[in-house]
């Protein structure tokens, strides 16, 4: 589980129940809370496959009934044969006819089996794809708050564990369940036709079998959920310990770690063993109960033949039927559990899909404009590099305001949770092109200010104006497009260096990418990489140093070239000497832009137009570097704290 960045730490209340809900391989025998609702919702995903489903129903019926019917032919065959035993010139014509019919029935069965499997494959994979895509799309729309309160593991397990069980249930479970049901029904009807008397015996046996399943299944379910809990615990432990393996090494903590591990492992082994035992003995017990049934039926049947109530052919087919009875019944009971588990997973997926998406009541949009000689703005689809806010007036016309980057906070108050205010009645302004610095100790609320500006969170009180427009009126996408952020934790994507820089502007040309890299002073090290700009980055840019990754992130912001730039500890992992080297580039990048710089390394913020010193969610000092130094306040203390020479 990757570490969280600065915001969630404060938003997460202490003692929040953590721990993974279950690591990989998590699979449980749980029941959905609202079966009907979940089922109906799931059925909607089958919408595009209505025809497929109808065909699947027909072909599964054909496939299982063909098997059932085929067995019935044993009766005429055996009876035919018995009739001709010892004949010098037996008449095989009726036997041949029966065999042909049997062959035809079986052929239908084989073809149907193939067809339903093929259709089911299309339906299950397609449905899974659509569910996954829906989940992903919705996830992109979830508010930041959701990500702060849920671990990546929790979200990932929806895609891995829950979709996997669902897929298995859809792929195999449904068709097995239906074929088993059809077979049981078909066999039962045939038995009744062949010999109602013997069927009574079978029914008694079925009751015994069902009771056995219930008893063993109940035990098995109990231990299965214990196994799942234990598995979740040990996987959580493994995840945490392996992630911290280097710390374990440094502290020689191997033995203690192994000791704890063995405890969890033994717990898992014992519960897993009980669970597997019960599920493992179910099959042989059921199978052999069927044999007991077979024996009783054979003996009783033989007796009935002796008494003349029935014929050998009937007994032959009937016995085949008793053999084919137990398997589908066991199947049904097992698949039913899988299905319930899958539905519980589906329910969790739907719960996520039902989470409210980020709210956006914004109506002001960002458009490209041309400035006419008389100063009026004209909307255009051409990429002019000049942007304007387009606000509807109400009578169908629009007002255009050129984007300048004027940002004002008026008496803003905000808390991640209502009882804990993080930003307390803050007012500040940044005129277009100004560099504003926020400094202060960890937890003072610096990052929160930027989170409010790009509306990762909405403010509780006060207002934030952007070029005079309240930001809550601006469409979130357009608002964010007008701001570029370089964050403390740099995240890169799998792909080439070029792709990663281009993330700031998808249609950037190679020249633009190169220019941006030069501004960030990243060009130097990039051209030394094995494949230069085409070097593949994997695992969040694991092959680069933290500082190099930050340079790429700066280049990414540079290529986006928005009017407002937010640098949140953007250079914290770059040593000050390199930082000095890229300073000119950074200055070029900041030129003509409104910039918010967050840093606790004060050398970074010296040349800011205004420096705000924050503490406990309030601005306690503001001014430029010289005036703050002269003031001999908190800023002076922080600044000289670096250089105490005693």
């Amino acid at each position, binding site marked *: 589980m990757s*570490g*969280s960045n600065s915001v969630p730490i404060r938003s997460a209340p*202490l003692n929040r129940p*953590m721990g993974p809900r279950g690591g*990989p391989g998590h699979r449980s025998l749980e029941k959905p809370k609202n079966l009907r609702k979940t089922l109906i919702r799931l059925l909607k995903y089958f919408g595009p496959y209505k025809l497929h489903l109808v065909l699947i129903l027909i072909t599964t019926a054909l496939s299982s009934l063909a098997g059932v019917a085929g067995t019935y032919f*044993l009766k005429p*065959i*055996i009876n035919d044969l018995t009739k*001709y035993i010892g004949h010098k010139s037996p008449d*095989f014509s009726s*036997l041949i006819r029966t065999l042909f019919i049997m062959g035809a029935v079986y052929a239908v069965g*084989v073809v149907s*089996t*193939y067809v339903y*499997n093929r259709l089911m*494959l299309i339906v299950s*994979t397609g449905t899974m794809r659509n569910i996954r895509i829906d989940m992903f799309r919705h*996830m992109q729309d979830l508010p930041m708050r959701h990500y702060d309160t849920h671990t*990546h593991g929790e979200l*990932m397990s929806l895609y891995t564990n829950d979709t996997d069980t669902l897929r298995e249930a859809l792929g195999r479970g449904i068709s097995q369940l239906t074929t088993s049901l059809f077979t049981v029904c078909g066999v039962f009807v045939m038995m009744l036709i062949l010999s109602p008397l013997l069927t009574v015996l079978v029914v008694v046996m079925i009751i015994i079998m069902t009771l056995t399943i219930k008893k063993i299944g109940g035990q098995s379910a109990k231990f299965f959920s214990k196994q799942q809990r234990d598995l979740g615990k040990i996987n959580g432990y*493994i995840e945490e310990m*392996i*992630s911290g393996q*280097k710390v374990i090494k440094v502290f020689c903590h191997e033995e203690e*770690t*192994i000791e704890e*591990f*063995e405890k969890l*492992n033994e717990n898992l082994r014992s519960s897993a063993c*009980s*669970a597997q*035992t019960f599920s*493992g*003995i179910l*099959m*042989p017990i059921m199978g052999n*109960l069927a*044999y007991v049934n*077979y024996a009783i039926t054979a*003996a009783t049947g*033989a007796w009935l033949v002796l008494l003349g109530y029935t014929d*050998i052919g009937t007994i*032959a087919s009937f016995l085949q039927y008793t053999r084919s009875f137990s398997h589908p019944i066991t199947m049904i009971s097992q698949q039913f559990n899988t299905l319930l588990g899958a539905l519980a997973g589906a329910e969790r997926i739907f719960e996520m899909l039902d989470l409210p998406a980020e709210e956006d009541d914004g109506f002001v949009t960002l458009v490209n404009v041309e400035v006419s000689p008389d100063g009026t703005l004209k909307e255009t689809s051409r990429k002019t590099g000049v942007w304007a806010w387009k606000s509807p007036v109400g009578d169908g016309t629009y007002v255009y305001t050129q984007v300048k980057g004027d940002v004002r906070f008026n008496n803003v108050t905000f808390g991640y949770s209502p009882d804990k205010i993080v930003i307390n009645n803050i007012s500040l302004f940044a005129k277009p092109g100004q560099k504003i610095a926020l400094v202060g100790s960890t937890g003072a609320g610096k990052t929160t200010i930027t989170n409010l500006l790009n509306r990762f969170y909405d403010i509780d009180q006060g207002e934030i104006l952007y070029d005079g427009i309240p930001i809550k009126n601006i469409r979130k*996408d357009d608002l964010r497009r007008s701001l570029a952020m370089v*964050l403390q934790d740099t*995240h890169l994507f799998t792909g080439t260096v070029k792709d990663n820089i281009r993330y700031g502007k998808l249609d950037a040309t190679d020249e633009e990418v190169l220019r941006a890299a030069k501004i960030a002073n990243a060009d130097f090290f990039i051209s030394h990489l094995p494949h230069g700009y085409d070097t593949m980055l994997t*695992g*969040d840019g694991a092959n680069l140093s*933290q500082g190099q990754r930050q340079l790429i992130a700066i280049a*990414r912001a540079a290529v986006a070239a928005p009017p407002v730039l937010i640098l949140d500890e953007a250079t914290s992992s770059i*040593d*000050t*000497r*390199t930082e000095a080297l890229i300073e000119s580039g950074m200055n070029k990048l900041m030129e003509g832009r409104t910039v918010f710089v967050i840093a*606790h390394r004060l*050398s970074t913020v010296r040349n800011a137009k205004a420096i705000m010193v924050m503490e406990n969610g309030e601005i306690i000092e503001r001014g430029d570097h*010289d005036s703050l130094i002269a003031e001999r306040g908190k800023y002076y203390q922080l*600044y000289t704290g*670096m*250089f105490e020479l005693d």
Partner: protein
Amino acid sequence: MLKKLLPCLGKYKIYAILAPFSVIMEVALDVLIPLVMAKIINVGINGGGGLPYIIRQGLIMILLACLAMAFGAISGRFTALASTGFASGLRTKIFNKIQDFSFANIDKFSTASLITRLTTDITSAQMAAMTVLRIAVRAPALLILTSAMAVRINASLSVVFLVAVPILALVLAFIIIKAFPRFLVMLGKTDKMNSDLQENLIAIRVVKSFVRRDYENEKFEFSATELQDAQRRAEKLLILNMPCMQLAMYTCMIAVSWLGGKQIVSGNMLTGDLMSFISYTSQILMSLMMISMSFVMLVMSKASLTRISEVLDEIPDINDDEADPELLPQDGSIVFENVSFSYAKDGNNLTLENISLAIKSGETVGIIGGTGSAKTTLVQLIPRLYDVYSGRLIVGGHDVKKYKLKTLRDAVAMVLQKNELFSGTIRDNLRWGDKDASEDEIVEACKVAAAHGFVSSFPNGYDTDLGQGGVNVSGGQKQRLCIARALLKSPKILILDDSTSAVDTATDQSIRQALRGSHRDVTKIIIAQRIASVIDADKIIVLEDGKIDAVGTHEELLNTNRIYKEVYESQQKGVA
């Protein structure tokens, strides 16, 4: 591979032997039942044996079934014992193995991949073990015993199987061989989709702030569709199994009915025998089907088993082989003698080159250098997290290789750049440094690390639960707790690898001051970005590109070293 994995059974080995045995017993008993049934028909009905005979044979059949049931239940229990015992043994073995890994070994596999191997892959290995014990024994046993019975009843009729079984076996084998590579492709696509997803989750702030939702959606849609297609391609073949098997079974039934029927009419076969023969037909072919299914499962788990054995095969490249168990470091002195180091163990690709350096016990040493100048690499050699490539590293008077790893690392406390705290209380985490630490010692260490203040401000103080990965404290607080944890080891050498980067300057200063007071005899090595953090060190090392550029005090370096001067000036600017 099997040879390596089998010992994981440990004390459950006996069950792994008994389980197949009881399966075979169960199958053998089951196979006898249709034979008895044939007797009922042949002797009881057609042969004039009458009711008493039928009842006697009926009871024999029930007895056989009950015995089989008992063996079946026993095999179920033994299988569970063996397969879960195997999984548990395997888990322990891998986990212990990883505990022996050096940093280089861990780097090679990556943390994420080790986690998958220990969780997902083991679960699938357990499934494989169960399949082998349950199906892979039962099916061949059923195949062989049933065939034997069929031959006994009517050898000439068994020719049907002689034709059908090899054909079906070939077809099933063909399907599996064809499907295997496609399954590998599918697994690859699954990995790809999951890694896309994880990347997106980690970088969600970037995605949102650049408004790249549509782009990300498209990317994911592409991988989800690719996965769907790969799945269809792979399973398209596998679903042929069932119809092929049905085709073979039905064809055999018809052939047996026809050929057997003719024999009955001519008096060469009894009706009851034909009936049991038909019973056996479905069993023989069913067992083939089971064999093919278990192959599929084994094949699917093969990838997992391979990944597991890769871990088991890895040789921990740092060990106690040359160690003298009695040897203890005398003091906190450190000497680098012409040390070079390469992550790739390649002399042409050196990360550190010809480092020679002597640090006296109790000295405070600062290390300054640009990003990528190998500062971290240098200090990681001291507790022998990596081995030197060439040259010699002497700690406390002896070559590091002469100490037992535990002895050496107990003497060297290191606070890593990437700090990790573990779930549990603050106290639990601090006790990593010293599991018997008293309350006073804990508080003392926290005071030095400037952590006591914020810890006592928590409602639960030292009993505050940190949550997984220490999510309930801020970055700076985490760093301070990590320093306290290291101090509790009462080390001879303390290494702080950029460990106060998230701590504000005032606190940083107070930590250094406290350290100077309370840990006078401890050699302190401080890697820092800020000159301020090392300004009062006895010795400052300037690293550049894996080489020592200069060593000296602040004043000396300021006057003589260009790099140091530049760094200083870049931080100094503006202080009037």
